[in-house]
């Protein structure tokens, strides 16, 4: 039995984004879309929310982006990382707030871990924009949060199905809902006008062959999701390492030696990332 997909789609789209998604996100989106916007305009908006700017700076200075100590204000972050990355980070902080509020610590860890790993892979294959790929990793499971909040009954049934049938959450979502968190993520990325470099990985990280606009970024996030599950870091909703898509693997041109380098580096970096988890995940909140 599947639910009326159109109906659910409408429900999800009618949500004002993620429940606590700040109006700031919409303001930033509008500004970014306007060609006359300067970094300082966006920085002003982010800086007007102290808690948000602290979170943004904390995230950009963490192990994820690989240049700790260099970014001391939001304008600087915008110039170094670019508008879309900072927009993604603002969105991520909201999504993370919801994950923590909903008690989804495991998913939060999984998302952070995927971001770290995607960043490592992107740098190793010399992708021109590793920060953005990393943000795509942060956001890739956005749809799971929405399903959990909007469809609580189905969400419990999905969890039961994962347990009972020993299948992946992606498969269980298909069984119960007729669509997956990747599809829900796709609806939201469209609604929020996310750049395709973020929306493709969100929509196709399980089916990278379908990514038309950002196949490389999608392949990286697909691989990052496999590796972070292989590492057993965080909880992606099931305990199973998915198969790497052979075509996506081919597009990445990763040799055996490079694969080993990637895994070693992600493993080292995850230890650093645990700092962020420790400070935030234990319920201490983020210090401003």
């Amino acid at each position, binding site marked *: 039995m599947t639910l009326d997909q159109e109906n659910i789609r409408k429900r999800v789209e009618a949500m004002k984004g993620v429940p606590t998604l700040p109006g700031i996100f919409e303001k930033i989106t509008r500004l970014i879309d306007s060609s006359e916007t300067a970094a300082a305009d966006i920085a002003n908006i982010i800086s007007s929310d102290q808690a948000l700017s602290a979170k943004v700076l904390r995230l950009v200075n963490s192990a994820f982006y690989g240049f700790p100590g260099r970014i001391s204000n939001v304008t600087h972050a915008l110039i170094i990382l670019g508008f879309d990355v900072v927009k993604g980070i603002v969105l991520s902080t909201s999504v993370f707030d919801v994950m923590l509020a909903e008690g989804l610590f495991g998913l939060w860890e999984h998302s952070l871990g995927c971001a770290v790993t995607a960043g490592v892979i992107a740098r190793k294959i010399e992708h021109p924009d590793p920060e953005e790929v990393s943000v795509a990793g942060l956001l890739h499971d956005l749809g799971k949060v929405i399903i959990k909040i909007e469809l609580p009954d189905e969400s419990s049934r999905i969890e039961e199905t994962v347990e009972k049938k020993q299948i992946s959450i992606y498969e269980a979502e298909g069984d119960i809902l007729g669509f997956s968190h990747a599809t829900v993520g796709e609806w939201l990325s469209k609604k929020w006008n996310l750049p395709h470099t973020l929306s493709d990985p969100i929509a196709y990280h399980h089916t990278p062959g379908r990514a038309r606009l950002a196949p490389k970024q999608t392949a990286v996030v697909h691989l990052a999701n496999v590796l972070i599950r292989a590492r057993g870091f965080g909880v992606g909703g099931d305990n199973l390492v998915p198969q790497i898509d052979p075509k996506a693997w081919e597009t990445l041109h990763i040799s055996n030696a490079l694969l080993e380098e990637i*895994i070693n580096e992600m493993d080292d970096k995850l230890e650093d990332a645990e700092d962020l988890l420790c400070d935030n995940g234990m319920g201490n909140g983020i210090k401003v």
Partner: protein
Amino acid sequence: MQKIPVNLAKPGMKLAKPVANDRGIVLCGTGAELTEEMITRLSDMGVKRITVEGHPVDTGDPEKTLSQQIRELDARFKKVEGDPLMGRIKDIFLERLKERAKEA
């Protein structure tokens, strides 16, 4: 090395990783030997955890044994057994687990 909460730090411990504040500015470099004063300052500056040399603190957190970790790794890979690429990935993680166990 071990990552410990600052309130368990003791003078004489040596930093195995630099300590940075919230904004990523390095406060103390690798190899620095902690003094009472430094520990107080780090704590005042909001630093929560530091990484020190050796394994000086018994955190009471029972670490998983190597064989437990290997069993969990096997379980995670059960659906992709026999695939050569997935097998390579599993082997690399297995090596990492064994190395970690040796270091500890």
